[in-house]
């Protein structure tokens, strides 16, 4: 009798069905979700095979030569060098998206010769625009604070005025790519280099403690992010791997002012020498070999990345076999 008072015993069929149905529904959903999401085994650290990516932006039919320009004005010498190479339209086709890659590594002014000369960058941008490029991007992954590097180098203002889009580095835009190199496998690459049609590399010739000199191929450090310092453990193979990954359309070596000591960032004007030379080639190996010899008195053996790059077929270390044209402006 007590039980009858305390407990309700008039359960309807409808209530029975709806309440047990609700419970069963959630139970089935939970079990189903568990089944769908179940992962029997994981191997998060097992090597996954990834396609090797090579960005070959060269125009193969062009003949290898070195054009060396000198004169009194960096922009007009650059223009003369481009003209001697057959004009920018030989490299840039209408509608191309072009990335121009100067060295903007350090918070230094142009006269300190740690970054590429802004007049040279601007002139190259103008020629790309005139050749019909759909878009010209100027970018670099800097060492120091990017805002300072881009602006105090004079490159941001000069490139913008010449019609380029100036792109500051952004961590979100790095993409891991398998370069398939000797030293460099998966590396975080600035995504712009994976998308563009052409790349013009504009290094500055300057001293470097470890490699003795930083020229065109070394400048490609600026396309990757991550722990770049780790690559110093085998810097020569790393440089060659980078050159193999990004085969630039054209390399223009800025030796307007060169940094002789305390590289690669320098600082003191006493370490800078005015040479007033701009050189260019589609062969980055020959251009590095020529530049290292001409400005720093280094032989091919002093620059081990050259032979390694040659083995990748990036060019020849024997720059003397290439025709050399000198122009004045």
């Amino acid at each position, binding site marked *: 009798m007590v039980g009858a008072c305390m407990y309700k015993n008039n359960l309807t069929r409808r209530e029975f069905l709806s309440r047990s149905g609700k419970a069963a529904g959630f139970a089935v959903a939970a079990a189903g979700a568990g089944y769908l999401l179940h992962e029997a085994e994981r191997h998060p650290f097992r090597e996954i095979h990834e396609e090797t990516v090579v960005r070959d932006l060269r125009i193969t039919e062009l003949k290898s030569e070195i054009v060396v320009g000198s004169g009194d004005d960096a922009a007009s010498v650059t223009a003369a060098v481009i003209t001697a190479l057959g004009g920018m339209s030989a490299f840039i086709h209408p509608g191309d998206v072009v990335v121009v890659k100067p060295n903007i590594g350090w*918070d230094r*002014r*142009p006269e300190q010769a740690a970054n590429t000369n802004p007049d040279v960058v601007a002139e190259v941008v103008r020629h790309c625009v005139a050749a019909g490029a759909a878009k010209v991007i100027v970018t670099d992954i800097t*060492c*120091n*604070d*990017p*805002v*300072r590097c881009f*602006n*105090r*180098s*004079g490159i*941001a*203002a000069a490139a913008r005025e010449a019609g380029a889009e100036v792109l*500051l*580095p*952004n*961590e*979100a*835009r790095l*993409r891991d790519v398998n370069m398939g190199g000797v030293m460099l496998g998966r590396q975080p690459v600035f*995504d712009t280099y994976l998308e563009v049609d052409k790349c013009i590399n504009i290094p500055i010739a300057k001293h*470097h*403690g*470890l490699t003795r000199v930083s020229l065109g191929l070394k400048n490609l450090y600026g396309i990757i992010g991550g*722990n770049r*310092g*780790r690559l*110093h*453990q*085998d*810097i020569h193979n790393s440089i060659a791997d980078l050159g193999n990954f990004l085969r630039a359309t054209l390399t223009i070596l800025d030796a307007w002012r060169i940094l002789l000591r*305390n590289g*690669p*960032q*320098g*600082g*003191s*004007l*006493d*370490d800078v020498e005015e040479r007033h030379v701009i050189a260019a080639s589609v062969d980055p190996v020959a251009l590095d070999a020529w530049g290292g010899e001409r400005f720093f008195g280094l032989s091919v053996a002093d620059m081990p990345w050259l032979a390694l790059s040659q083995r990748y077929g990036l060019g020849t270390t024997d720059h003397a076999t290439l025709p050399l044209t000198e122009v004045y402006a």
Partner: protein
Amino acid sequence: MSDVSSRTSRDAARFKRLRWLRRVSQAAFLFLFVFLLLKTNIDSLATPDELPRISAPVDFFLEINPLIALGTVLSTHTLYRNLYYALVVIVLTLFLGRFFCGWVCPMGTINHMLASLRSGRMKGITRLENNRYRPAQRWKYIILTVLLAAAAMGSLQVGLLDPISLLTRSLTLVILPAWNVLMQDAYSWSLHGDTGVLSPLQVPVSWFVHKLLLRTQVVLFEQTGLILLLFLGILAANRYITRFWCRMLCPLGALFGIMSKTAILGLEKQPSMCTNCNRCALHCQGGDNPEPGMTWHQSECHLCLNCVASCPEAGIAFRFFNDTTASTREVNVTRRTLMLSVGAGVAAVPLLRTAIHPDATPNPSLVRPPGSIPERDFLARCVRCGECMNVCPNNALHPTLLQAGIEGVWSPMLIPRIGYCEPTCVLCSQVCPTGAINEITEAEKAWVPPAEGGGTTYPPLRIGTAFYDLGRCLPWAMGKECIVCEEWCPTTPKAIYFDYAEFTTREGDYVWLKRPHVDPAICVGCGACTYACPVKGAPAIYITAVGETRNPRNSILLDVPRPKGFEHS
């Protein structure tokens, strides 16, 4: 009778308009506050020779803040740079009362907004009782007294609880970085994410999110947990008591409460007109008893005008040179409590300083930003606002926990592993509102060679010295080429140099390597080497504060050039 009723409707309309003006003012100052936080960086420079400077008056709210002004006057006996702006607020408060709390303070505005979002159970009599003046509101005066007494003893702790410092710190170090993390993730997803059916959204999202990014690099800080906890606690308290922080704890509000003793503006009550509807008290922000028949507390009123704007009769009105018979200007703190609070503040300082003396035995990991003054003076000025950490382009400055003792909690320190001190940058010294980081120029910092040529001018303003951990250094311990530290060293000549050394491998072969060294006479302690060191985890080269210019006792070298005739081998 008709005269009175027409006056009523006129007053009510006027106070309603003024209440809208107050809302506009609150929104505008809150917007300005966040805007100035976002402007605390350099986004572009016109020419290579232009010196990077912050153009916006980013310290505005800290500099008009009487608590910071008074605190630093007590602790340093001087009024640094723009802190005299606070006089404007002081003068206005002496005449008007706590207008700052109700009309200007961004922390107050945030509390105000959150308090109005309360749940439905907080209404009627519950809310009325909740809004009554409570004796606990005197706690803020006790906090203020303790803080000012400690300041007079030379230890400036007001910044821990000053609402402007607290809000600047919380937004800068936690809230804005959290926003940026979210936006960076969204941006990353929009560029590279595998989004399936959502892929048509990627391009527009990418464009939109890029506009919402505050910085292109992820900037994150130490100590965000505790800072966030305090901030969230203050926000959450509004759920239980309207503007709990402003009423009970805020030392700046307490200072304004004391100053409002001389106010010529106040609430005037007409008990004969009052119908006891209690609408005034229902909407009261300060908990100051606006309803007729109770004692109005001038020191608690934020001048929000909610009471007068919601009065349906002519029961209350704000008047200049008001009749003060139904109000009090006294702060509810007894002389005994006051003396105890002063005693507590005075005693706290020597107790906090029973820790090891910062000048005689400096903490090696406490690397202060360039321009920082000696540690004791630093702690007499730093208000922990985090402006230096906000402006630092390299995310190098972080709040301490106990590195500077309990006395220095949340003051800035350089963590070179996360970011180094940019050699040409002096922005932290420019934005520091109190001169804890004294304002310096690039030439005074002297870490890089001057524009006219020659090497680095010495002596530079050093912040520390680099040392190698030879057991972790690649060339020293592992026979690998590296010298990334030498590459990054910014001085001319470089403080890091290398020699050529032979390394014996385990196979017994010899390798020739470039092996780095530090010249402590040239090293400025910027930490670029530590930042760039490829040995992740603990770096192979690290900075300690030894050699810092601000403390001559914290040095290694006997750096005196010997006069002619005194050289010897």
